[in-house]
């Protein structure tokens, strides 16, 4: 079965980013497919590589990156939500005259159409948020 996952909450806020990750892991372990994980609203903060949590804490951002790399999962950040919150890739950075980018490996920035497409292509869409 194909699953789409929508994450609306930032990391280290309450628990939604953690629950979404544990759910995504379980989806793969059950032999299902993840069409896309879409990060919207404060959820876009899951995709900044500048995150530096204490060493004895989980690294929510790199955990997503490793998950995407291991299982070839498409992690998409909403461009409008990202611009408001200072999440950018090199292209967005240049276009907006910024001196750096901060997108984490495995993530890409795109539009809301990617969420709609994921919901069309998936058998189930599961939402995690605050």
């Amino acid at each position: 079965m194909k699953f789409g996952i929508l994450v609306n909450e930032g990391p280290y806020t309450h628990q939604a980013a953690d629950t979404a990750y544990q759910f995504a892991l379980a989806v793969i372990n059950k032999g299902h497919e993840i069409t896309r994980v879409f990060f919207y609203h404060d959820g876009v903060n899951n995709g900044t590589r500048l995150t530096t949590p204490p060493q004895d804490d989980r690294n929510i951002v790199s955990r997503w990156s490793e998950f995407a790399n291991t299982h070839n999962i498409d992690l998409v950040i909403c461009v409008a939500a990202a611009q408001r919150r200072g999440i950018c890739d090199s292209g967005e950075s240049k276009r907006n005259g910024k001196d750096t980018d901060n997108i984490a490996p495995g993530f890409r920035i795109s539009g809301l159409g990617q969420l709609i497409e994921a919901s069309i292509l998936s058998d189930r869409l599961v939402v995690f948020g605050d």
Partner: protein
Amino acid sequence: MSLIHTVNKSPFDRNTLDSCLRLAAKGSSVLLIEDGVYGAIKGTEKSDLVTNAMSSIAFYVLGPDLQARGVSSDKLISGIKIVGYGDFVDLVAQHSATQAWL
């Protein structure tokens, strides 16, 4: 097939559990996750709300989130099933769609 509703906030903090149970159709399921697991405890002000709904709705609670909060199974309203993340996936697959009450 029916819906599965997820509730992730304590019923003593938000009214999402009340809203969910007011609108959930007969034969649907409710999965309590994160702080929502507090809604599964017996003897609270919200226990009757859940117990009354159990005649027409199946209740599940996420075990790891109970453990994280020190809530043991003997504190739960009887009839609520404890599930893991794998069961969470199965429940989503078994129902026609998921509704997250945020």
